[in-house]
């Protein structure tokens, strides 16, 4: 060390040498620059050129309006509006405080502190920072007219799905949400990109392909602020198609009013075509909540709600059918010739199967009753005996013939199938044999059996229309922007293999149910109704579910109805009463029914 040190200090450089050292360093430094620039321009030039092109050329998507959803008469169920937000561009916002205080005079809710923080934290100085969303139109126009006074402030418009019917059809139409990976693959042909909205549930999901439309695009040259300076090529957006629901808003509203705050389902349909005129599933939700970005708190409330408002219980709710199932047991008995219409069985109020006593709902019993009377008064003991005569296999076979235990084919996502229990099923799931008691329970629609309200609609439709299983559906037609029909609902019909005599007897019995039997609360002065009630005891809840499935007018039906009240709070059989009120209000007004009547043969 010391030697080196001495060496350096002793040998002082001459002036010339010193200048040359400096000159050498400079030449070296400049060579370095030249190499670096060569590395950038020659070795990596292509990459940088590409980077420059991709930032310069931008494909600006031109959003297309999503298709409208309207009811059968063309009244709006879902359309599009704009939602306005106010933002600032951080790069040009030199005096944020001043701008914010000025803005606050127009937008009183604006939080100056928070806004300043947002602007300070902005990562891209050229991308607008949203300060406040959902600004009403008058404030937007005020700001737009005074553009000069608010430099760096921008108004951002966003298309927003709007559901003017709100809760009334929430769990029918569904809602939109950001596209996921799977959907992205499916809809990419329509120009759907990450971040776009697609139907997530309900009709919005089922018919997304028709409703989505196609995004347009514009290839533009943009400057750093994203301002387009030159359009290079263009493709027009294609609006989504207009979807006509089979729903009749008038009837839907009547059903809503009559159900009140009860939990449950109302289905009204045209039994001949399967068109669903009313699908009410309560509780419901307002899909508009999702359109403007649902808050975590509200989402929590909706998804944890014990009533499951997001579910469509008409199609996805599974319940024991209760006494409404007696229709099918009766049909099976007649068809399999186990009894004749005049065969009577005694009801002392209870019936012993094995060593278990099965009770009739009427403690004092019904005495000797025939099939029709047994249906009218919903005699349980009669049906225990009948069921045991028929046997579980044949009961299930007939249930299947009526479309239970399988999807109805309704145009709604993720339909539930219910459950038809068989000895084999029981053995598999409970490791237990099928007891005669299980058959007795099944005969009155209790026990393991589960159905969805829409399946019961299909059953009652078949009774009303002369024995045909028709596919219930929610969409009537879809028309494009030029009013050309691009989708027409179709009627799928299957004859249930039962005779007309059996069917006629069932219909007479159903008339009797309302006239003099358990469904008397459906009786009204306007229209004669036929139908069957059902009351289902639920384990762990003292309030039973209450069914009514029926049709009107009884003689020449053209509307069918299913009412299900979950855990009814009334002491009385409320479902037939609600059905009666709904149908009488519908039939009161000629215009409500004339169109269905005319069509009827």
């Amino acid at each position, binding site marked *: 060390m010391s030697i080196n040190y001495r060496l*350096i*200090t002793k*040998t*002082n*450089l001459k*002036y*010339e040498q*010193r*200048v*040359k*050292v*400096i*000159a050498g360093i*400079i*030449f070296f*430094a*400049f060579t*370095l*620059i*030249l190499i*670096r*620039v*060569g590395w*950038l*321009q*020659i070795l*990596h*030039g*292509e*990459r*940088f*050129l590409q*980077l*420059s092109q991709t*930032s*310069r050329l931008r494909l600006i998507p031109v959003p297309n309006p999503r298709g409208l959803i309207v009811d059968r008469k063309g009244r709006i169920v879902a359309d599009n509006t704009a939602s306005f937000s106010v933002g600032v561009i951080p790069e040009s916002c030199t005096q944020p405080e001043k701008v914010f205080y000025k803005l606050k005079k127009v937008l009183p809710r604006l939080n100056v502190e928070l806004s300043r923080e947002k602007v300070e934290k902005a*990562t*891209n*100085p050229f*991308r607008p920072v949203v300060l406040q969303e959902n600004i009403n139109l008058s404030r937007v126009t005020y700001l737009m007219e005074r553009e000069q006074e608010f430099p760096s402030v921008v108004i951002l418009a966003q298309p927003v799905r709007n559901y003017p019917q709100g809760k009334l059809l929430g769990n029918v139409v569904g809602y939109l949400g950001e596209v996921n990976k799977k959907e992205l693959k499916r809809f990419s042909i329509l120009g759907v990109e990450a971040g776009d909205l697609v139907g997530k549930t309900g009709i919005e999901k089922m018919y997304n392909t028709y409703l989505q439309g196609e995004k347009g695009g514009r290839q533009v*040259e*943009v*400057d*750093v*602020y994203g301002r387009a*300076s030159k359009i290079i090529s263009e493709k027009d957006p294609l609006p989504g198609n207009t979807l006509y629901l089979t729903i009749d808003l008038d009837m839907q509203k009547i059903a809503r009013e009559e159900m009140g705050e009860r939990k449950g389902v109302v289905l009204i349909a045209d039994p001949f075509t399967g068109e669903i005129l009313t699908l009410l599933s309560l509780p419901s939700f307002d899909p508009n909540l999702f359109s403007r970005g649902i808050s975590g708190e509200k989402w929590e409330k909706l998804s944890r709600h014990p009533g499951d408002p997001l579910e469509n219980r008409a199609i996805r709710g599974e319940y024991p059918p209760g006494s409404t199932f007696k229709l099918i047991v009766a049909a099976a008995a007649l068809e399999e010739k186990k009894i004749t219409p005049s065969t009577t069985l005694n009801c002392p109020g209870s019936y012993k199967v094995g060593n278990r006593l099965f009770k009739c709902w009427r403690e004092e019993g019904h005495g000797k009753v025939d099939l029709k009377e047994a249906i009218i008064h919903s005699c349980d003991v009669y049906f225990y005996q009948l069921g045991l005569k028929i046997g579980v296999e044949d009961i299930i076979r007939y249930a299947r013939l009526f479309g239970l235990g399988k999807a109805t084919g309704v145009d709604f996502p993720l339909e539930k199938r219910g459950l038809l229990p068989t000895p084999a099923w029981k053995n598999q799931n409970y490791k237990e044999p099928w007891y005669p008691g299980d058959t007795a329970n099944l005969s009155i629609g209790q026990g393991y059996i589960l159905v969805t309200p829409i399946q019961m609609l299909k059953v009652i439709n078949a009774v009303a229309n002369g024995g045909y299983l028709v596919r219930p559906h929610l969409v009537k037609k879809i028309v494009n922007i030029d009013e050309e029909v691009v989708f027409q609902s179709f009627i799928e019909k299957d004859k249930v293999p039962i005779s007309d005599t059996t069917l006629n007897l069932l219909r007479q019995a159903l008339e009797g149910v309302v006239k003099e039997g358990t469904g008397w609360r459906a009786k009204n002065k306007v229209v004669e109704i036929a139908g069957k009630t059902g009351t289902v005891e639920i384990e762990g809840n003292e309030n039973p579910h209450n069914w009514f499935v029926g049709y009107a007018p009884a003689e020449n039906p053209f509307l069918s109805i299913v009412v299900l009240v979950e855990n009814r709070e009334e002491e009385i059989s409320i479902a037939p009463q609600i059905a009666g009120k709904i149908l009488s209000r519908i039939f009161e007004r000629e215009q409500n029914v004339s169109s269905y009547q005319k069509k009827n043969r």
Partner: protein
Amino acid sequence: MYPLTRRKIDKYLLVATLVLTFWSIFHLYTISAEGSWYYFQRQLIWISCGIFFLFLFCYLPTQIWSRSAYFIYLVAAVLLIVVILKGEPVHGARRWLEVGLLRFQPSEVAKIALILSLSKMLATQDEIKWKTILLSFLLTIIFSFLIAIQPDLGTSLILFSIWLVLLFVGGISLRKFFILTGAIITLFPIFYSFLRPYQKMRILTYLNPQKDPLGAGWSSLQSKITLGSGRLLGKGIGGATHTKLKYLPQPLTDFIFSSMGEEWGFVGITLIITAYLIIISRGVYLALRKSNSFSGLFAAGFTVLIALQAFINMGMASGIMPVTGVPLPLISYGGSSILLFLSGIGILLAISRET
């Protein structure tokens, strides 16, 4: 009274200077948007004035500068104090003084004033004593300090470097030189702690520009894209899309090198660097010829100033130096910088004409 000048003007130096100057004004024209000739027109005026000074100083005897060196230093010091007190803040820094319609940066005057005074102080000394070193340090630190608080860190550091170079060339013993450099290296961390947050940010960004490409690393990244996308032959005259669409920040001043690279490609960049090397070679040749006289030291100091600024600016544009806002000599837009460099070249030309 003054010795007669006998030599002809240094044509290489003059031509290289004029090539860069005219090229820059032409470039300014091609990257201006149609109809917005504000910067172009102003720069044209500044360059005209600058060329006037260049020729004026070229024919003035050089003794004037050595005699008035300390006086010029005083004037510059006053201007620096005035700018601190009364300067117009632009982007948060007080660097400009407004005189009527004109706006200029006293720090540019300070550069030439410091080179003149240091050259005078250190000229023709066999051994530079600690006392002289201390005095020269005082001259430097006063300017450095006044400029650093504007704040203009780049210029402040440049002045410091000039001081070191002139001490070295002026003949300071290597022992003293290493003691000084050692001291500076030790003091650097303390100096860093005095930096403003945005200055620290720039240094950190320089170390990793990709980390936040839309934030602080934006300038550096965009500059590299602009420069690199020019490839070998450039995008052609007026074809500098990345510059014109404003992706490149400060395209007239800090990053004019990148935008010239975009338009003229590697060929153009090679020409620019060649022109600088010609100017620098002539300066070095002059410094050698004039030995450690006032003229020789001034030639060395001023040449190093050009080289240093050119290196920092080009290094910053190509992403090997932090973004400091040092203008590219003779090319960047800005009246003060243009006047300073053309005047300085004028003095160099005058020195070259001396026998």
